[in-house]
């Protein structure tokens, strides 16, 4: 009886811990959602800590969308992250195919290099890349997407290699006998068979590019080319701090992430694990 009782207490403690974890994880989002519907006077006044606004309003959303360029920054983020995702998946597939199927001199060196690139401080590339883009006259443009390869490509190659290794070689042999070129073998045999890995790589690349701040804050400061992280940062410095507006802006930019997390959570979890843990 007492065994069962102590077991029940342990069980209860577990649930308390889980609930606490969930509350802490989600409370900040809940609170900015609450604030986003308050008029600024309430945020600054006695109603600062009230949960339900006295005079709820959607004015903050109208302002951040119409005047603060939040939708434009979401569009910019979609363009640079989408393009980044496409070319990184293509480039990583091609190299992962070769790395997982063939031996060549300097292979260990190449893999070591890719791993070290993923580890070094990004600050080291920012200065030279800024000067490179300045000299080419492509600061404040969508070309920044190519610079994102430093942060996205190494882990993409790692994840792809892991997945391509799991595709059985026998199928390729058959394809080769049927006269398929290596280009065809990669895209028509291996790529579809490694689809879960491809999806994981794509989504991880997209999130990494979407969240990138340092490079875009340095190289794309023009209002028309600001990405979401940069735009949200500017809300603080450009205007007097209106927390209700910032909250509304935060909710607006969190929606795409929320949708991605809801749809692709399996791939994201796989990506986190593949990116770091030994298979």
């Amino acid at each position, binding site marked *: 009886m007492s065994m069962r009782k102590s077991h029940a207490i342990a069980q209860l403690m*577990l649930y308390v*811990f*889980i609930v606490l*974890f*969930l509350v802490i*994880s989600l409370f*900040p*989002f809940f*609170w900015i959602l609450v604030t986003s519907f308050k008029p600024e006077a309430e*945020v600054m006044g006695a109603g600062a800590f009230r949960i339900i606004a006295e005079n709820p309003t959607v004015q903050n959303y109208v302002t951040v969308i119409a005047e603060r360029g939040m939708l434009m920054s979401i569009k910019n983020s979609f363009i640079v992250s989408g393009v980044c995702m496409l070319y990184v998946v293509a480039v990583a597939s*091609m190299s992962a195919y*070769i*790395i997982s199927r*063939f*031996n*060549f001199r300097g*292979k*260990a060196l190449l893999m070591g290099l890719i791993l070290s690139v993923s*580890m*070094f*401080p*990004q*600050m*080291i*590339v*920012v*200065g*030279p*890349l*800024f*000067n490179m883009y300045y000299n080419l006259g492509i600061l404040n443009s969508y070309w920044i997407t*190519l610079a994102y*390869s*430093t942060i996205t490509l190494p882990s993409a*190659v*790692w994840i792809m290699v892991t997945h391509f290794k799991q595709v059985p070689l026998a199928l390729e042999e058959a394809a080769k006998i049927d006269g398929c070129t*290596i280009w065809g073998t990669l895209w028509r045999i291996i790529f579809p068979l490694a689809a879960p890995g491809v999806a994981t790589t794509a989504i991880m690349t997209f999130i990494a590019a979407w*969240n990138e*701040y*340092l490079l875009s*804050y340095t190289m794309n400061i023009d209002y028309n080319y600001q990405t*979401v*992280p940069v735009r*949200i*940062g500017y*809300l*603080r410095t450009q205007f007097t701090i209106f*927390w209700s507006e*910032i*909250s509304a802006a935060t909710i607006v*930019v*969190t929606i795409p*992430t929320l949708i*991605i*997390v809801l749809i692709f959570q399996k791939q*994201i*979890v796989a990506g986190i694990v593949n990116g*770091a*843990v*030994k298979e």
Partner: protein
Amino acid sequence: MIKRMTFKQFLFIIPLLVLIGVFALYPIVTSTMYGFFNYRTNNQQTNGFYLKHYFNANLFAENLKYVNYYLSADVQYFDEESAAAAAALMDQNTKYMDQYVDQGTNITISTETTSELEQYVADMQQQVAGWYSAAGEIEYSNQENLDIIMGDLGTSFIKSNFVGGANYQKLVTDSRFYAALQHTLVFTTISVVLEFILGMAMALILDKAIRGIGVIRTASLLPWAIPTAVSAMIWRYLYDGSYGIVAKLFADIGITSSQASMMLTSTGAMSAAIIADVWKTTPYMMLLLLAGLQTIDRGVYESAAIDGSGKVRTFFRITLPLMKSSIMVALLFRTLDAFRIYDLIALLTGGGPANSTETLSVYAYQIMFGQSNYGYGSAIVIGMFVCVAVIAVVFVKLLGADVVGNPESR
């Protein structure tokens, strides 16, 4: 079944090599080079890499033209002797103008010519000053303009801005660098340790496969998936000295002395950054450790239970050792990530108050882009790079070379 590569197959990795080369290796090499120069983009004489002396002939000729223009306007006020000397000077200036006009912005001239021209400029400044003092008070004189222009003539001589190890010498004695290093280490150590403990606890709980694991995953992935810039803004609001609910909560339960002190004291601001980071990255740690836990054979636990091993003992004697490689990899990735933190600090505290949360990345960025001093900024970054290499090597040593060093085993 693994074969040797042919040339056609080599073509497949060319895009990777090009991207890594242009966007990773080239910048690293360039940054290293910046570190050996006094390279500042806000100063004409240091806005480039000059191993030798150079001469900006165009600028020299241009400035001489202005010298003559101002002198010819003021020569009427000079006494006879001075006026004659001024005329002679202007003749000589014209000769030099003809010689150097449109010759280029950084041409190479001999050391003798350089010192000859520098002497000429120095003499000119002395002469001109003499004429004006002899002329006495002139109501609308160009003396000030002339001084500026003659000063500008000096900038036509570009000295080599190769400084060798001077930036690094400065770095090892720079107290702000050590302070930033200390902040970075404090931030990294505390947040990674907290994330590890909390992540481990959550992973152990989720490993028991209770209901609602899907909900917990989604809920915990959201903080991890949003941009750090966005989470920094959210926390900045929660910490606000007047309207922030978390700052109020901390003040009410007595953790901080007042609501405003959260962001105004150095301990408060550092804790604020650490809490925001722990909030955001514990899910990442949790998922990594959970994956590690799930690779452990359940039979091992049963044997341990049969041998009468208690839960705590089983955890320390069996679970932890079996998870060693996942733990080390998770810690390595998180440590390196936290060590290079930029966006969270930049947007949450801006490095303040009084630089007390300034990390190495924030300091380097401030020097490079705030002061346009790429030379010294790069030296700081290279210093960071060395720290990162040391951390990575220590982890790999602890981990055993097979996991990170050898791609075949992954």
